[in-house]
């Protein structure tokens, strides 16, 4: 027997599709002029429109951190960000961290420390760590763990992730 669950409230009729909105975004250094529907998340824009699939969709509810990117240098959850609201901003994704053909210190450190197993959370971990280094508030392993708590790793590579961030931190002149 099939049991159906009825919503206590029917989902409202969607209103007619509004026109797409002109948005200009600098993504990994390239200026993009885009036409975006207002409900497009920054995550879906990156993955589906711009084919930048390094940024991952995990939970799509801001709980896992796989979608972390930098907007104007600050780490945010791109799944809970509407792209239209970031008109005029600079976005950096995992694809944009390399410079002059060299891996970012964090990318190299994640390889050196084997700081992943399946790798799905890794782009978010690295972008989040880049934001953490820019903030300059974490100095100890304990503080790194606390300020990285928005990035979940279901493989449990946390000790190696902390070690990788500490390596990048000293390589970039910070404390560790």
């Amino acid at each position: 027997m099939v049991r159906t669950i009825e919503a206590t409230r029917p989902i409202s009729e969607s209103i007619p599709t509004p026109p797409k909105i002109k948005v200009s975004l600098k993504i990994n250094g390239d200026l993009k002029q885009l036409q975006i529907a207002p409900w497009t998340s920054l995550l879906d824009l990156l993955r589906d429109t711009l084919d930048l699939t390094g940024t991952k969709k995990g939970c799509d509810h801001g709980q896992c951190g796989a979608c972390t990117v930098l907007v104007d240098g600050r780490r945010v959850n791109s799944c809970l960000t509407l792209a239209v609201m970031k008109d005029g901003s600079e976005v950096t994704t995992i694809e944009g961290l390399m410079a002059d053909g060299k891996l970012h210190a964090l990318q190299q450190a994640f390889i050196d420390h084997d700081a992943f197993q399946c790798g799905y959370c890794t782009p978010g971990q690295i972008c989040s760590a880049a934001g953490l280094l820019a903030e300059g508030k974490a100095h100890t392993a304990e503080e790194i763990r606390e300020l990285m708590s928005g990035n979940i790793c279901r493989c449990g590579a946390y000790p190696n992730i902390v070690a990788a961030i500490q390596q990048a931190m000293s390589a970039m002149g910070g404390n560790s």
Partner: protein
Amino acid sequence: MINFQYARPNEVADAVRQIAADPRARFIAGGTNLLDLMKSDVEQPSRLIDISRLPLKSVEETPDGGLRIGALVPNTDLAYHPLVESRYPLLASAIMAGASQQLRNMASTGGNLMQRTRCYYFYDIATPCNKREPGSGCSAIEGLNRMHAILGTSESCIAVYPSDMSIALAALEATVRVMGPGGERTMAFADFHRLPGDTPERDNNLEPNEIITAIELPPQGFAKNHSYLKIRDRLSYAFALVSVAAALEMDGEAVKEARLALGGVAHKPWRVEAAEAALAGQPANEASFAKAADIVLSGAKGFEHNAFKIDLARRAIIRTLTQAANGTPQSQSSKKIR
């Protein structure tokens, strides 16, 4: 998520005009809670009014020696602001106890006050919920209610208000400045959020056509003797089972003045002035703190899965007051509770 229109006003007055013109419109600032609710179809706005660029982003000292915090100051910026760190460390600590750094970077001060409960049934549109659908019933009262309220509940709703920041703001006696079509008004923090009663659909006393413009802190910041202790299922990035904000003004070994507010236990930050009054003039010891805890929790009522919160809250109150009296506030990175 349903389709919606998008607008981006440049002035506060224009934002108020736009919200007043469309009852199904919603303001969006950080979006960390609203977009999540929209993805679950709990919120189905016809129009999002993007207030994120309104000029409400400054933190300024007020003439009386207090602090005025613009409603759009991101949580991270507020927690790391030098004046907040030095004069209102209880507030900085409570902010850092909540969410993740990504979410704190996005979330605004005003939005934090407006965040809705994380009750599972409120989020699940397949279940009855009086807050989401008035009159449909409460699924939590006889359901999975481990995270739910133990104080100020009603037969309609046992949801908790999930903020950490607001618990500190309640203890610090902040005021909320709001703007509506008729101009600006201020509300005491204690009057902002509501108990569920028979209208759990209303979280707070902000009118639908009003916008929060600022939070103001009085001069007294309790910078020497304070602590924010948050007890949760994980060490980080989880909502409180119980949290306590304690702020003391000491006179040698005795308490001169006390502030005490609880999170994770009610539909609003829970503050009992009789408990604070009972501490005034008393020695700062476990017996005094236990007496205050008993006053705070005198009307507490547990449900099937959350009765443990009553004793947990009692012990957390005593511990937090001890930390505050000793001048050893709870660290939000070291999770060791001393």
